[in-house]
């Protein structure tokens, strides 16, 4: 299998790696997981609030990805697909843990190493603004703009109507725009 070493998998675009994964290439899958697993974990951490659960979410999402990659029509859209998979797993986990409790994005606080890495001013401002709006609105906004889930996917995942999702996201946008008035 020495020929493969001539091609550096880390240099391959997403669509090519996806094609390799569909053909059963675990090395290509590892490269995709390395490329986007961190973002999946950051998102899972926000929803689950602890590292152990976030790791479980990422692991489950990646195993699903390995098994279902053949269903992905556009390999170049794999990042968004992986984020949606992880978001669904995170929501399922939190829902199972806290029956009848609204899902809320978790503030990670300044002690979390992952949060310390988020130093850019815009992100810090966004974090602060998200913390000021109702959690169900922030959650819907993050699922749509962070995890790239459609209104329909969010509605199905949360068990609410599309109109409810749209309303929550619209109110979140309005609040974020008002709170980040000075941000350019």
């Amino acid at each position, binding site marked *: *299998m020495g*020929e*493969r070493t*001539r*091609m550096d998998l880390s*240099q*391959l*675009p997403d*669509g*090519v790696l996806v*094609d*390799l994964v*569909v*053909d*059963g*290439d*675990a090395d290509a*899958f*590892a490269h995709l*997981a*390395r490329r986007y*697993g*961190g*973002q*999946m*974990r*950051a*998102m899972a*951490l*926000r929803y689950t609030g602890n590292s152990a659960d976030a790791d479980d979410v*990422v*692991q489950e999402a*990646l*195993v699903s990805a*390995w*098994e279902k990659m053949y269903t992905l029509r556009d390999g170049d859209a794999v990042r968004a697909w992986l984020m949606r998979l992880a978001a669904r797993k995170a929501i399922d986990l939190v829902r199972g843990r806290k029956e009848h409790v609204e899902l809320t994005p978790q503030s990670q606080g300044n002690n979390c190493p*992952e949060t310390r*890495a*988020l130093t*850019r001013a*815009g*992100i810090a401002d*966004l*974090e602060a603004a998200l913390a000021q709006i109702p959690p169900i609105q922030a959650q819907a906004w*993050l699922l*749509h*703009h*962070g*995890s790239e889930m*459609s*209104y329909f996917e969010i509605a199905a995942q949360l068990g609410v109507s599309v109109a409810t999702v*749209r309303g929550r996201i*619209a109110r979140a*946008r*309005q609040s*974020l*725009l008002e709170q*980040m008035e000075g*941000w*350019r």
Partner: protein
Amino acid sequence: MQRCEMPLTDLITYCDYLSGDFAAEASLVNRVEAHLEDGQCRNCQERIRRLAKIESLGSDLFASVELDDKLLGQVVSELPRRSQRLIPLRANSDQALTEAELHALVRSGATDADAVVTRVSFLGDLKTLGAPIHVVARIAVRFGVPLQSAARRVRRALAHTLAEATDFWVQAIDIEVIDVLPPDAAKME
């Protein structure tokens, strides 16, 4: 900046319409576009621009964390195995590979520095040695490399790999170019 009378909710609905997230009533779209197109309302233009920038930050929220190598290794090592169906390779021996191993062998044998074999399909009865097999390989080719010569080279390497490792009766090998890879940085220097 002077405020206008355009409700923010209408601008948000208009942005949903532009991004394809949601349908909007034609009257609303026409009203907002007329309002924006006259070039008078910089306030609304700025609000739309800022909405888009804030939303693009959403994905950046998750962009700065790396996945722990230990977790990654654990995930990869525990991946469910793919297609374990055994494929006989030789007429006069029990030598066999799983379907997944056969695909890996072909990808590996036919990939070189300028073309990567991304997916292989075997059309025909692989379980019966001597049955005619039609192979289709999808490849991605390095930018700047002539596609036809890359396809010819991969076809030859693939035929050679199968001839060396199996007694398959390969009737045809089709090559499908699916993507172009970035130029080789080492060669450009």
